[in-house]
């Protein structure tokens, strides 16, 4: 039987969750995008209001089920629903937003159990146009929060960038599991 793994993509509105899933999904993604009516939050034509869904088969045959969350705070009720049973989380931060480090804190807190388990990775977008905060700033903030997750720049329109994020996420999960197993056996 094919093993199925669930991953969740979270982050602020416009960070690229739908785009990231679309970039790597081998099926036409299921989306719940509707016309955006809040241009104060983000100047974007459409926004996800429930979830995105895509699928990707790994080289080993495991099937990844990819779930995207709606980004706005008012849809926070959807986040734990979609994160339930997830192996890991990809947190996408848009560096062009007013306070990306506050966004980082918000989504890390929301997906804290996955982050604490070492099952999360942070992808920072639009760093080419908005280089600040830097990756060092992100690392510093994570250290203050006592959270150890990888942070990497990403252009989620590019399939390879999204696959790189997933590769780092799986390495992180594997490394954390190894450490846990060693701790148990010692």
């Amino acid at each position: 039987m094919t093993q199925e793994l669930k991953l969740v993509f979270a982050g602020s509105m416009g960070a690229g969750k739908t785009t990231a899933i679309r970039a790597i999904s081998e099926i036409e993604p299921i989306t719940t995008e509707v016309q955006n009516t809040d241009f104060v939050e983000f100047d974007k034509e459409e926004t996800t209001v429930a979830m995105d869904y895509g699928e990707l088969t790994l080289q080993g045959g495991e099937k990844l089920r990819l779930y995207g969350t709606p980004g706005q705070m008012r849809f926070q009720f959807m986040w734990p629903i979609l994160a339930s049973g997830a192996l890991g989380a990809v947190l996408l931060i848009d560096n062009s937003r007013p306070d990306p480090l506050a966004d980082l804190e918000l989504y890390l807190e929301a997906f804290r159990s996955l982050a604490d388990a070492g099952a999360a990775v942070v992808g920072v977008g639009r760093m080419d146009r908005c280089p600040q905060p830097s990756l060092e700033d992100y690392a510093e903030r994570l250290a203050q929060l006592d959270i150890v997750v990888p942070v990497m720049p990403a252009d989620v329109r590019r399939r390879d960038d999204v696959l790189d994020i997933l590769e780092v996420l799986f390495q992180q999960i594997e490394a954390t599991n190894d450490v846990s197993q060693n701790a148990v056996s010692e």
Partner: protein
Amino acid sequence: MNVRAIPQELEAAFDREIKQLHARVAGVIGCVLATTDGRRVAAVVDNEADPQRVSAMVGSIVALGETIGREVMIGQTQFVAVSAVSGMILLQRVPAKRDLLVVGTLARHNTNLGTLLHETGIAAAAVGIVFDEWLKSANTASGATEHRGVEAAGRPPLADS
């Protein structure tokens, strides 16, 4: 439409329709008019439910209902209903030229579903007429191009799609 900048007269007219729906159907304990992206436009709720949270959920559930309808190829979704032990909620899109609004009606469990559906449909149609008339007058008054100035520069227009 930027819901944070709905003109007062339009908001008042929406509010009137929602209050009328709430008042005319026995057993109805709440009515919400929300945007399809989950923002509260008008609401009357008798219990402790938070209208803003309910509005967000209305947007999500309608989108999910319509998505699953498409996925299983049963055609366009007409309404979404949630039936619970102590009540039910019925969600119906507002039929208007711009597909931006949803009416949600919360009722006690002993309310007749057919009546609720009929009355929610009437309210949705009335809201649609109000919205269409306002869109028409707004576009006539200012012209599609000029109307783009209603919101901050670069934002999509309020009235023309």
